[in-house]
């Protein structure tokens, strides 16, 4: 746990994902897609209707975020992670279609964790209260689907050295469970 951050490129090399362990700090560079509640609901509806998704999630990373509006001259506004568990009902649908990583905050359901280990998808935790810092790691942003959803639209982000921690690795590791177990003490 902890130590020097490991540099990773997204879309991810499956071999690089296997090496990750819960608690590892990472710096992610490359392409990341954004989607949160409303976009996931539309993804699920498209899948149920047998329609193609507006973006190909194969090998991709989804970041659960709804950024603030960008100031003039800025690529994007503040952009920290939102609570991932709200996407739990939908994530397995995307993981089955090749999604390789998710970035968010908060615990995932047992069904999502099982889907992740089965299909080789890793969950990274970022810190919500670092939203202003994280926006400086985003070097380009463009809406690629559901423009009408505003902050909830699907964006393609170019990120450079985006800091996160491995929460759920491919070996059953879970930073939230391990971290809390290590520091829990008896109540006075």
């Amino acid at each position, binding site marked *: *746990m*902890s130590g020097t951050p490991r540099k990773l490129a997204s879309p991810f090399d499956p071999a690089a994902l296997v090496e990750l362990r819960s*608690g590892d*700090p990472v710096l992610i560079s490359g392409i990341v897609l954004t989607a949160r509640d*409303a976009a996931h609901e539309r993804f699920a509806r498209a899948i149920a209707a047998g329609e193609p998704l507006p973006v190909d999630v194969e090998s991709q990373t989804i970041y659960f*975020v*709804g*950024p*603030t*509006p*960008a*100031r003039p001259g*800025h690529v994007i*506004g*503040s*952009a*920290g992670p*939102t*609570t991932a*568990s709200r996407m739990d009902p939908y994530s397995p649908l995307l993981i089955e279609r090749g999604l390789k990583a998710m970035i968010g*905050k*908060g*615990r995932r359901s047992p069904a999502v964790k099982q889907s992740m280990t089965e299909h080789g998808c890793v969950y990274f*935790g970022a*810190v*919500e*209260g*670092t*939203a*202003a*810092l994280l*926006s*400086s790691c985003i070097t380009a942003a463009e809406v690629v689907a559901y423009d009408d959803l*505003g*902050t909830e639209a699907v964006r393609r982000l170019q990120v450079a050295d985006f*800091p996160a*921690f491995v929460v759920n690795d491919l070996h059953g590791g879970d*930073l*939230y469970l*391990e*971290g*809390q*177990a*290590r*520091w*829990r*003490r*008896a*109540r*006075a």
Partner: protein
Amino acid sequence: MRTVDVAVVGDAVRELCVRANHEIRDDHLAALRRARNEERSAIGCQVLDSLLHNADVARVEQIAFCQDTGYAVVYLTIGQDVHFAGGDLTEAVNRGVAEGYRAGYLRASLVRTPIDRVNTGDNTPAMIDIQLVRGEGLHVTVLIKGAGCDNMSALRMLTPAEGTPAMIDFVVETIERAGPSASPPVTIGIGLGGTFDRAAAMAKRALTRRSGVPSPDPEIADLERQVLDAVNSTGIGPAGFGGTVTALAVHIETMATHIASYPVAINLDCHSHRVQELSL
């Protein structure tokens, strides 16, 4: 009697919405620094360092500390000798929120109803809470509340027999259930007593108290310390990555209640704890 133009109130709300989202108040910054000194987990210290760094970046660049710029709770403490002129007070407050959110490049995060989920576009309406007091004073406090922590808040009507030990257990249970989703280290507002609705309102208002200032009632202050210690024994830590600081402060407010009731409302606020105030 003092006459106040509602536009003055609207302008204050606009300024406070921007300031609360861009600049973390000194008491919360001090609480984060204290937490950094006390935290024993390395990863927890890293998280706290980033939160403090983030506060600098947000203030210097005048951008939102957190992308969830939440809903605006506007507390108006109004002297009963104040007369408002120049229009509708509620409309003026909502105008202030809409203008502040636009001017500060803040996110519109409210939908018209939980059913149709159509964004209102300007982060209105404000959640307005009015308290009448003696005199001619006028005080405006804006609390910016994100959803991650609000979603993890809870209310329970305990029985007198269950009492205070059950209240403490309920707080710990709520924190355990929230875990990383509430973005710890959290500030915990607790309303004890009153009615179902008043307990929740007290819990929310308790969040506006300066961080870590104990209740003036020594018995309640002691209870605040006990609850804080119980919460920090969970090991959830900063960002939920494990550590010794899960909460920065516990603020308890109490009021009279029914002989049959022990209402407990718990309102959590994330590490992006945002409050600003202004006397007019």
